[in-house]
């Protein structure tokens, strides 16, 4: 069996524009007034065609429109991409097609449009249930507006997830517990709960470096928040299935599972990454990040700036890093197959003793505690 089948096959489409840039965000997103969506459709289709020759004859399990703010895409643009993909790769019966939405950047009518062209899942960036904090996060919407957008979305779609960011400036453990309970009463079957990460090269990153980003929770508080998140969600029937993702059983994001189970994915659009099994190897692709430059490159044949064959050490490490994020863990036999050597048993024993991982048969899982310090766990497992 081809290894990628362990994860499946997906398509990621990157839309690199937002109405406003959030100060914490390091996604490849840009603010611009002139976007010719027809030109973008042409470019996406051209990239799809190029990939159809690389990986033909596959069944597509999921499509994800990510950003940036894909809810700024016209339904026609989304439709054109979905249709072209369908021409190239037969869709699985249960194909999941997700589109990311910013509650400040959707007209009510659009959701129906997306639904009509095949989108069947929405992931909405709500971020906080508190207006003051939304303002501090540089968001362009209020809680009420977010809630309204969420209601419109849930009227159109069975599957609507939303994102919150916690460990925000000035937030206490009690604040977060309260907010999370309110979120759970809103949620349908999926939630992404991210601890605020201070990314280099963002406005928050600069402020932080200058000591101007005050009142961030300490590491210990953040750890308490993380643990509380696990417990509260579990009690509401939405257990974690990944470090930051919670779902009712069966409602997990299929597209994102492809990443974590280390399947294959085509990535198109500025800055999009892909992983493709070709010619007996695993290739990493990466597209040019700047939207204008990407368009130009695509018109000349390819948007890629990286297309490299990963070494066994690299792809086995990626598999481990991604897979251990999942509560289900990884199959050590698969790792050994990929790496050509087993995981270090002595390290695993140490980690079991510390309560960081558990093992049953050839399955290795991180415990709740281990997942909270996964980087340290991975450093041990990957140390030579």
């Amino acid at each position, binding site marked *: 069996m081809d290894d990628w089948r362990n994860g499946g096959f997906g398509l*990621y489409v990157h839309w690199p524009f937002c109405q406003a840039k959030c100060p914490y965000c390091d996604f490849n997103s840009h603010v611009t007034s002139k976007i010719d969506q027809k030109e973008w459709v042409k470019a996406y289709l051209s990239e799809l065609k190029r990939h159809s020759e690389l990986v033909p004859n596959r069944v597509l399990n999921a499509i994800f429109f*990510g950003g940036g703010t894909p809810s700024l895409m016209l339904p026609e643009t989304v439709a054109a991409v979905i249709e072209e993909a369908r021409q190239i790769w037969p869709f699985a019966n249960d194909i999941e097609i997700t589109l990311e939405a910013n509650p400040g950047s959707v007209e009510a009518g659009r959701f129906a449009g997306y639904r009509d062209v095949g989108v069947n899942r929405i992931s909405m960036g709500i971020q906080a249930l508190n207006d003051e904090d939304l303002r501090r996060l540089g968001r362009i919407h209020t809680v009420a507006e977010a809630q309204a957008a969420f209601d419109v979305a849930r009227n159109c779609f069975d599957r609507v997830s939303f994102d919150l960011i916690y460990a925000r400036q000035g937030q206490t453990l009690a604040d977060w517990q309260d907010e999370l309970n309110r979120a759970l009463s809103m949620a349908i079957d999926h939630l992404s709960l*991210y*601890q*605020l*990460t201070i990314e280099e090269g963002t406005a928050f990153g600069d402020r932080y470096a200058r000591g101007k980003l005050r009142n961030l929770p300490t*590491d*210990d508080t*953040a*750890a308490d928040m*993380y643990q509380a998140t696990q417990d509260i969600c579990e009690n509401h029937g939405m257990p974690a299935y990944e*470090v*930051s993702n919670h779902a009712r059983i069966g409602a997990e994001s299929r597209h*994102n599972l*492809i*990443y974590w189970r280390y399947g294959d*994915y085509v*990535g198109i659009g500025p*800055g*999009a*990454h*892909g*992983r493709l099994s070709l010619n007996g190897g695993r290739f*990493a692709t*990466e597209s040019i990040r700047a939207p204008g430059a990407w368009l130009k490159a695509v018109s000349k044949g390819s948007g890629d700036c990286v297309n490299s064959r990963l070494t066994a050490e*690299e792809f086995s*490490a*990626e598999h481990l*890093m*991604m897979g251990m*994020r999942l509560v289900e863990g990884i199959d050590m036999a698969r790792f050994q197959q990929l790496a050509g050597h087993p995981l270090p048993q002595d390290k695993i024993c*140490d*980690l079991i003793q*510390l309560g*960081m991982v558990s093992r049953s048969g050839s399955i290795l899982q991180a415990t709740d505690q281990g*997942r*909270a*310090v*996964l*980087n*340290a*766990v*991975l*450093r*041990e497992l*990957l*140390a*030579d």
Partner: protein
Amino acid sequence: MTDLSKIRNFSIVAHIDHGKSTLADRLIQETGTVAGRDMKAQLLDSMDIERERGITIKANTVRIDYKADDGENYVLNLIDTPGHVDFAYEVSRSMRAVEGSLLVVDSSQGVEAQTLANVYHAMEADHEIVPVLNKIDLPASDCDRVAEQIEDVIGIEATGAIQVSAKTGQGIHQTLEAIVNELPAPTGTRDAPLKAMLVDSWYDSYLGVIVLVRIIDGELKKGMRVKFMSNDTLHSVDRIGVFRPEMETIDVLGPGEMGFLTASIKQVRDTRVGDTITNDRNGTETALDGFKPAQPVVFCGLFPVDSAEFEDLRDAIDKLALNDASFTFEMETSAALGFGFRCGFLGLLHLEVVRDRIEREYNIELITTAPSVVYHVFMRDGTMVELHNPADMPDLTHVDHLEEPRIKATILVPDEYLGDVLKLCQDRRGLQEDLTYAGSRAMAVYDLPLNEVVFDFYDRLKSVTKGYASFDYQMTGYREDNLVKMSILVNDEPVDALSMMVHRDRADARGRAMVEKLKDLIPRHMFKIPIQAAIGGKVIARETLSALRKDVTAKCYGGDASRKRKLLDKQKKGKKKMRQFGKVDIPQEAFISALKMDS
């Protein structure tokens, strides 16, 4: 060859930054020894590190031709010596090769600790001393006050001192005239067997060892066979010459002259500073008094960060040792740090210079362990062992008592900081020997354990006095005290590279400070880590580094796989730079940082 009466040999003594090098440059320039276009600031400081730190490490000479106001042509030989206390011993040796000194004092500052230390060396060498007040161009210059201070503190006549600005050139001519008129000419006999003093030597990759000599009697000529009297070795002189300051070969050096010789000598170690050089046959009967070689007083371990670089380190150390006889080394193995070298230095600056050169010139990253002085351990059986490394401390049941080296420290400081200085000295177990005032400056003389000074005393002194204190010291001898070995245990395992000798009364405070520092320096692990200081089996301080609770990337999707992998690779490299003690990784900088005291 120059007539003895037309030769003047002299050195310049000064506190650091009072303008010694600048004055030397001016003298060279004024006499046209170097064409203006070849002039670079500080001609005599040659090595990069010296230039960077603004200090002179090796003795240098320069020969200056000067036509004096009396119409005669003179040869002036200037010997430039290191200014730093680590090299005090070398200064005192070099002084023995000349007859006079210019005492340079910054007229806007006054007498400082190194002014004193250096002028005493000059007096010990029986020099005629000519005071020079420098920097008279500065608004703060106060020649009368400083002249008075020189008379008060040093006790030499200074009312007529030459007033100079090495910056503008004012007073340079008078200085040259004073050298000719006030300093004595050397004495010596031309038709006698050769008797030359080996003043210094260093390694040059083209010429081999270059030997700096001062001719006392007789003549040194190219092609001669000479004998180094201390070890009876014979050498054929293949080149002699002088520095102007570039090397210039000449045919003969006569009595009273200074210059260099090369004789295909491979190692600096084969030459002994202070040795007497004479003819191989019918040489002089009486050797010069000679000097004892400088003894290393500070020891520390140098280990490669990457243990694969051990052989490269050995190579680097061998090469450096070729040119530095005062630096000693032997192989050391540490449970924690693997293979490295235990090295001996003249002082902390010397240590830093050597370490920097290894890192910079040989590109080897180093872990430096706690500097230690040499303790004398007296055993119950009456024998004494020298302890260079606390890790080697013998079993206490066999030990009778310990002695540690002491120094006499002289500190000059403006009045308002005196209190802080006295406190610092008390804290470091100092005993006050003298406290006097010269104007608004106080001079404190303390008897201190070298151990307390070696690590960061000078940094602390600078910081409590905002840089206004000056400091100098000399070794005085050994004294018994209540000294113990303090071990550091991390996760219940002793870390040999962190063990140190301390005074029993200071051990608790030291131990507490160490474990607190280490708690900040060691990154959190997945488990909690006890950090303890112990004497023998008794724990005297303890901290617990709590377990890591959160270290995970919040968002990780398709595009993040490569980024995350690179991040982990970077962390893995970082981990390689740490040292493993049992299951604990300790970053290399912890070994030095943990020792810095805040008081």
